[in-house]
């Protein structure tokens, strides 16, 4: 692990907390009938650690040295391009009737996962370049 990892650990912790809250809220939502305002607040609860996670990512990037920032920028470009190609590619094939037309609520979790997978893949590829 690099010298910058100490700022990354809270980010991972917040991501895990957000995921746990998402599952817990979904479970409560199914089990209990809640009044409107409480239901909305409970549904939005996982967004709090998620927002803190993005703030943590910004702090972590600020703490990186110049080459590490360049590596992450190039990884983000890879991630952005790959995710865009995936979304546009799937959309085009779905419109042509070659793939099922998925509802948005089913697409988002997979898309979120793809963002992180492409970021990790981009990071691995770019790091090789500067090794």
């Amino acid at each position: 692990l690099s010298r910058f990892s100490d700022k990354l650990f809270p980010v991972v912790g917040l991501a895990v907390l957000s995921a746990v809250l998402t599952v817990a809220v979904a479970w409560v939502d199914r089990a209990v009938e809640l009044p409107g305002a409480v239901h909305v607040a409970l549904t939005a609860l996982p967004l709090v650690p998620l927002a803190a996670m993005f703030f943590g990512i910004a702090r972590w990037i600020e703490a990186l040295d110049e080459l590490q920032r360049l590596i992450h920028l190039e990884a983000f470009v890879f991630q952005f391009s790959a995710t865009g190609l995936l979304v546009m590619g799937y959309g085009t094939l779905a419109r042509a009737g070659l793939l099922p037309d998925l509802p948005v609520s089913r697409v988002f979790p997979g898309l979120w996962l793809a963002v992180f997978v492409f970021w990790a893949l981009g990071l691995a590829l770019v790091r090789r370049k500067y090794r």
Partner: protein
Amino acid sequence: VNNRLRLLRAERRWSQAELADRLGVSRQTVNAIETGKYDPSLPLAFAMARLFEQPIETIFDPGSEDGSGRDATVGGDGTR
């Protein structure tokens, strides 16, 4: 841009990790600069000059404009 970073570091018997610590950067950054895969920013280059107590131009050499500049890791007599 060529540089004499590896040579200067070896003279002081510092590891890449030790130099990285002194400069406040990662070991990968020191390695990438030494191998010429990354050119440091001016602030980092000046930090290196301060650390090695040498003028910046004795550590870094821009090479010639056609890209075939002399290797800064090679001394004036051709020895490394």
